[in-house]
């Protein structure tokens, strides 16, 4: 059982939590993740570590509400407990002194990027960050990224900020105008990371991406998280989650992620009325007012 000590709604569909998990906090490294189970009937699902505090014994995670599991997690409040958290899982990011780093992130990729940039800076790298969001309303943690990066650029999908709508356009222009980049790290939506790899490929710049396939155990026991990298099958939970993006079979990853769309929709739709009923009970509404 891990207690939630802080909860923030960053933007309407993205939640930030700080939870008590002292042992994990002591061992966490950039690029690692945890697997959670919200309650007794819950599925096991992974979330990246967005921060940790060894002294206070807390972890930070942030997540996008996608379906039933993340919705259930978002329904918990400060003081509530998450049934199970296991970690830290996965290989940590390889933090070396590379020189000039371009870090690219969007949505839930912004979380793990913060500790990663900090670690890269400590190794003497120069880090330029480009963050992508759909529009101004879905932008968060711009200040955090600014405070850890040397330079920060924001790309908004609705074009309301500068001329770029996609981070890919930004990267291409940035590289074409002669900026030297030794390594790129990209975290976030799969399409964004894929796009990013397309942009860096012509310049032959190694691009590390954080893959997010469906997982079950997270310890290399089931093979559910298998991806194809450079023609070889890898288990993301133990061999990754970070891989060389130019070698990833993106099509396979996307198809495997969609394997349960029907079941996910079914679970979500059945859960919602159930949840409304629970909210009604909890909030002691007068009996006449029926929610359902």
């Amino acid at each position, binding site marked *: 059982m891990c207690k939630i000590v802080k909860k923030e709604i960053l933007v309407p569909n993205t939640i930030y939590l700080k939870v008590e998990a002292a042992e994990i906090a002591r061992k966490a490294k950039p690029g690692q993740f945890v697997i959670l189970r919200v309650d007794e009937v819950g599925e096991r699902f992974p979330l990246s570590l967005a921060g940790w505090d060894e002294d206070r014994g807390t972890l930070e995670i942030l997540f996008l509400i996608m379906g039933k599991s993340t919705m259930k997690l978002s329904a918990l409040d400060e003081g509530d407990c998450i049934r199970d958290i296991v970690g830290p899982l996965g290989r940590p990011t390889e933090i070396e002194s590379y020189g000039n780093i371009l870090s690219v992130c969007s949505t839930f990729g912004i979380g793990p990027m913060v500790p990663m940039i900090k670690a890269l800076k400590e190794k003497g790298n120069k880090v330029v960050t480009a963050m992508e969001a759909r529009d101004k309303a879905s932008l968060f943690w711009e200040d955090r990224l600014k405070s850890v990066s040397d330079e920060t650029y924001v790309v908004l999908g609705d074009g309301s900020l500068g001329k770029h709508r996609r981070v890919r356009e930004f990267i291409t222009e940035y590289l074409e105008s002669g900026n030297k980049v030794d390594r790129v790290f990209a975290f976030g939506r799969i399409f964004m990371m894929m796009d990013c790899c397309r942009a860096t490929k012509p310049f032959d710049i190694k691009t590390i991406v954080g893959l997010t396939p469906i997982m*079950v155990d997270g*310890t*290399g*026991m*089931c*093979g559910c998280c298998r991806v194809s990298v450079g023609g070889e099958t890898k288990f993301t939970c*133990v061999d990754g989650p970070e891989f060389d993006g130019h070698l990833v079979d993106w099509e396979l990853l996307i*198809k495997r992620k*969609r394997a349960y769309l029907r079941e996910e929709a079914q*679970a979500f739709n059945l859960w919602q009325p159930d949840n409304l009923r629970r909210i009604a009970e909890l909030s002691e509404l007068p009996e006449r007012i029926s929610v359902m």
Partner: protein
Amino acid sequence: MAEKPKLNLNRVPIPKQTPEVRRRNFNEVALGYTDEQALEEASRCIDCKKAGCKDGCPVNIDIPEFIKAIRAGDMPEAARILKSKNSLPGICGRVCPQETQCEMTCNLAKKGGPIAIGRLERYVADWERDHPEIAEQQKERIRFNGKKVAVVGSGPAGLTCAADLAKLGYEVIIFEALHVAGGVLMYGIPEFRLPKVIVQSEVDYVKSLGVEIKLNHVIGKIATVDELLENGFDAVFLSPGAGAPVFLNIPGENLSGIYSANEFLTRTNLMKAYLFPEYDTPIQVGKRVAVFGAGNVAMDASRCALRLGAEEVYIIYRRSKVEMPARLEERENAEEEGVIFKLLTNPSRFLGDGRGRVRAVELHEMELGEPDESGRPRPIRKPGSEFIMEIDTAIPALGTRPNPIIPSTTKGLELTKWGTILTDEASGRTSKERVWCGGDMATGAATVISAMGAARRAATDIDKYLRGSTEWS
């Protein structure tokens, strides 16, 4: 000497759910003996002076004595005898391959009617579970000796080693990677062969001895073996099993709808996908399922697939019936339930539906040639025998490899060429001081009871070493 009694060689059969009914539910297949049946079976035992049965049991249960107690109607005594040697009798009575162990060496086996020792063991364990007050009375008083042992993994090996050491006064903490204790007993072996309440009640027994189980702790990640040794543990027993799945390595294997047996069984048993959407974890089976391999794991996967609603389930195996590694009983159970065996057949590739899901598998026929290094006839591909079989789900059940998390994070642990941890069989010692190992991680995939036997030997050696009566080397 009294007159020799007449031998009765008719084993009392165990009642089972009928195949037509059980193939669609997850309830236990074998229903267990009634009191009368147990007494009748126990009465067949002739209480041999040189009881062969005992030699066949890796944890040395005093078999004639516990059977005698059943005959005498003294169930608390029967339970006590079992528990003194085996902390998990309800599990072993159900899943031990008795026909190659205690029942094979029973003196009556030569005459064709060994005592159904496993079924009697199960009967006693089930009786005890229904009478918790007896277990309470029998609880031994344990005095802590001030020494601390860490056990990694809560499968049968880990539970056994922990229970044995706790009874000797050690403070034992088990670290388990998953969110429940039990290892393969929880995530692999299906509910209909081994109900999970039984596993949990035997886990609870181990806890009642004072053993603490820390769930959600992956050793190698949250703490390394070296850190355990540095931070107050006097010894470490490694029992993380051999949990990494092996795939066929043929084209198309990463299509959706292709599950390792581990994933398929974990979703079904551990995550209770058969209760989806009441439980959140989904599983897909569709109408036609192909399971590759013919061991016990393949039988379990195929029988789960039937119960999840598949219309046709195939076992696809490249050799013939006689080479099938599964226990005869499990094979018969699968056959009765309607699993179709396609022998001398091997897959060469999977075909997708264009949207990333498996649609079919290409198979070819095999014939048997000269024996290979395993001593079994080598299967050879028949040229030109390829054909396509439409399927919705494929489950490679080809065995497992040791998981590398612990070896790769522990200094000074020597491995074998199979990736298992090099372990002295008699003592369980590894090449690293104060570290012992047992179970599937030491031997490769084996059996529950052999894992328990190894754990018991290690516990004995750990005790000897920590009491200072032997040196490390």
